[in-house]
């Protein structure tokens, strides 16, 4: 198992960040100045106040950092002033190393708060698992993967609501979706999108030969009608109509709802609730998530294009590309390997129980952070 470290701040990075920090201090000071001016118009005042509030978290950290840095300077000059006093030197050295530790901690916190955030990270998500190549075995594995996320969600205290399941003959899942809600769901799960490959002896296989099959996973940030600017005119909602003239003549239990988004032609059909209203609500949820994802990936593509033009060596992970093979679950060898960070974990059962998924997720988050740091410093250097 690979150890997960805090990113080390290189002197270069610290230098770059210092420039940003003093710019922020500057800005904050001039905003304070403006607010204290009696001739500031109410609008100016409100705008300045709003910006200050936004900066306040960062400013708190900066002032802590400044205090620490003063302390460090003080200790250093103390040490240079009396190089003979051994007791005093020992004490100062110890205090200095503690202060430097603290300085580093504050710097990395600041760096984190300065890195660009994905607005979607705090959102709830829709999980979609789909059996790929491998027939029945793929469906059975799709069910295992779906349940893995269910357990993982339970462990994190998230709510996991099944939206729709299409079962296969052997009661595996041809396709399943769920709505996951809680704190920071998308931020944690977004790297799970892609193709998950399984190698094992299927229960259906009598000769004991190991098969390889695959399921695809998609994690979509949840969105509402406002996010995607959904208009009623753009929707066509079809419900089941009984044969004959309906009404009192018939008594159906079919509550299926199909929503078509006319501009994109996208359709979502849900039928597993007895209430047509609930089916409709679920279908809308899924539709919004899908539309939002289209919009997001459109923005992401143009953004990463921009970035790779600036710095072609940067490779993006977690782009959510569903066709990228991201992970292999090898049951005979009891291991799970994530191909993006090159981590292999040897307790496959724990992973399937939703326990050790964090090994991969944390590594991927860290990797994302490092990528962000790299593009952070390159963007400042070029600017």
């Amino acid at each position: 198992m690979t150890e997960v470290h805090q990113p080390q701040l290189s002197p270069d990075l610290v230098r770059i960040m210092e420039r940003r920090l003093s710019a922020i201090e500057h800005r904050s000071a001039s905003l304070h100045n403006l607010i204290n001016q009696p001739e500031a118009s109410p609008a100016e005042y409100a705008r300045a106040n709003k910006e200050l509030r936004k900066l306040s978290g960062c400013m708190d950290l900066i002032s802590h950092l400044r205090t620490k840095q003063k302390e460090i300077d003080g200790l250093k000059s103390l040490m240079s002033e009396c190089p003979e006093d051994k007791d005093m030197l020992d004490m100062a050295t110890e205090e200095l190393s503690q202060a430097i530790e603290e300085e580093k901690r504050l710097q990395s916190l600041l760096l984190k708060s300065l890195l660009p955030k994905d607005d979607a990270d705090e959102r709830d998500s829709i999980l979609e698992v789909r059996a790929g190549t491998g027939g029945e075995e793929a469906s059975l594995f799709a069910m295992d993967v779906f349940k893995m996320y269910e357990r993982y969600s339970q462990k994190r205290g998230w709510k996991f609501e099944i939206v729709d399941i299409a079962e296969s003959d052997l009661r595996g899942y041809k396709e399943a979706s769920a709505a996951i809600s809680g704190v920071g769901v998308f931020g944690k799960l977004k790297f799970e999108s892609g193709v998950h490959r399984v190698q094992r002896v299927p229960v259906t296989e009598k000769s004991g030969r190991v098969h390889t099959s695959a399921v695809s996973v998609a994690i979509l940030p949840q969105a509402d009608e406002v996010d995607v600017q959904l208009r009623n005119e753009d929707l066509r909602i079809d419900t089941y109509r009984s044969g004959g003239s309906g009404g009192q003549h018939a008594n159906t239990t079919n509550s299926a709802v199909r929503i078509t988004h006319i501009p994109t032609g996208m359709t979502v059909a849900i039928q597993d609730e007895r209430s047509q209203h609930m089916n409709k609500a679920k279908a809308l949820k899924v539709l919004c998530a899908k539309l939002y994802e289209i919009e997001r990936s459109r923005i992401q593509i143009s953004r990463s294009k921009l970035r790779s033009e600036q710095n072609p060596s940067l490779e993006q992970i977690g782009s959510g590309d569903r066709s990228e093979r991201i992970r292999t679950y090898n049951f005979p060898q009891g291991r799970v390997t994530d191909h993006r960070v090159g981590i292999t974990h040897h307790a496959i059962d724990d992973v399937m129980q939703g326990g050790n998924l964090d090994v991969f997720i944390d590594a991927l988050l860290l990797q994302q952070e490092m990528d962000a740091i790299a593009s952070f410093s390159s963007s400042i250097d070029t600017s």
Partner: protein
Amino acid sequence: MPRLSYELLHHARRIDPLLIPLLHTCRSLPSAENELRWLREHVASLNTPRHPLASNASGVLPNAWRRHRLERLVTARSRGTPLQYLLGTEFFGDLELKVRPGVLIPRRETAVAIENLASLLRANGKVLRSYLLEARGDGSRLNILDLCTGTGCIPLLLQRLMRHVGIPTQILGIDISPKAVALARENGSHVAHVKDICSFDRGDIFAESSTKSTSPLESLLATKQMTNIDILVSNPPYVSPRQYLHHTERSVRNFEPKLALVPVRRSTLWTSGDAEENDNRHGDAFYPRLLQIANTIIKPKVFWCEVGDLAQAERVAAMAVDTAAWDGVQIWADEPAFASTVQHKEVSGNAIKLVGEGHGRSVICWRDEGRAWLGL
């Protein structure tokens, strides 16, 4: 009924043997699978009865009891018992209402029409509110009467939808069947908000008073302080004897009350004419009476009623036009919210709008104020 293919049955058996009997009634695998899941969830939610032998905590007996219970429900369903009677509830809009044998199960088409009616009223809520204030003063309510109320589904849904936009209502539902009235009262106490006023009473809409002074309906309205009815709604029995025999589902015919479906023949009004015409008249029997009540006793601003198909809708629209009491008449199809599809029908020399997609489902009539309430 077409036979189910051998492949389908074989496939179903591999998934779950209990699907086979369900397929007999459901006819398609996805709906059989759904129904089996709903029945399972229902059984899982039941409290197991205490059994003298179940005192040990092994849980074996409750499981056996549940399995037995599920099998019994599946058998009942395979014989055509409506799923809603087995589960004890049905959804109507976003309400979950109690249902039980002896009372008609509310239909989706009805809910869709009522939601459309409510959404028109809500869109013009301002007009409606200022009317109520001017005509009846502060704190007054929109009065809604539902004749042939069954489970009480129609007025309860209307009440809820109007409350959401801050229009308080007083609703009254009337039905001839004591079972229906009892059930509607249960539903009312279950879903109505504390601030809502709802009541349900027994009554025959055809009843005439012996003294000829006031009709029983009028006296009932007076005791309920509902003399100003703003909106009259009704989904009366409208299936003709012939349709009942040939065009109703087996499960409807065998398990739902005929009283709720086919008008009881009460006079020799239609002895002449050909058989088809007589059959139609029989199916239409409630509408002249409803219109008469609307024109002489309560004079609502809006009158809505459900019908069985487009032909019946046109006949009812013609009756309404002929009374000359209404300022507007429209026919709504199953999906009246697809308002972009509007056709015109020639009815009694007038061009009547047919709004929406699907079968003809209801007729709506209004007087002048009603037009503003509906924005039509």
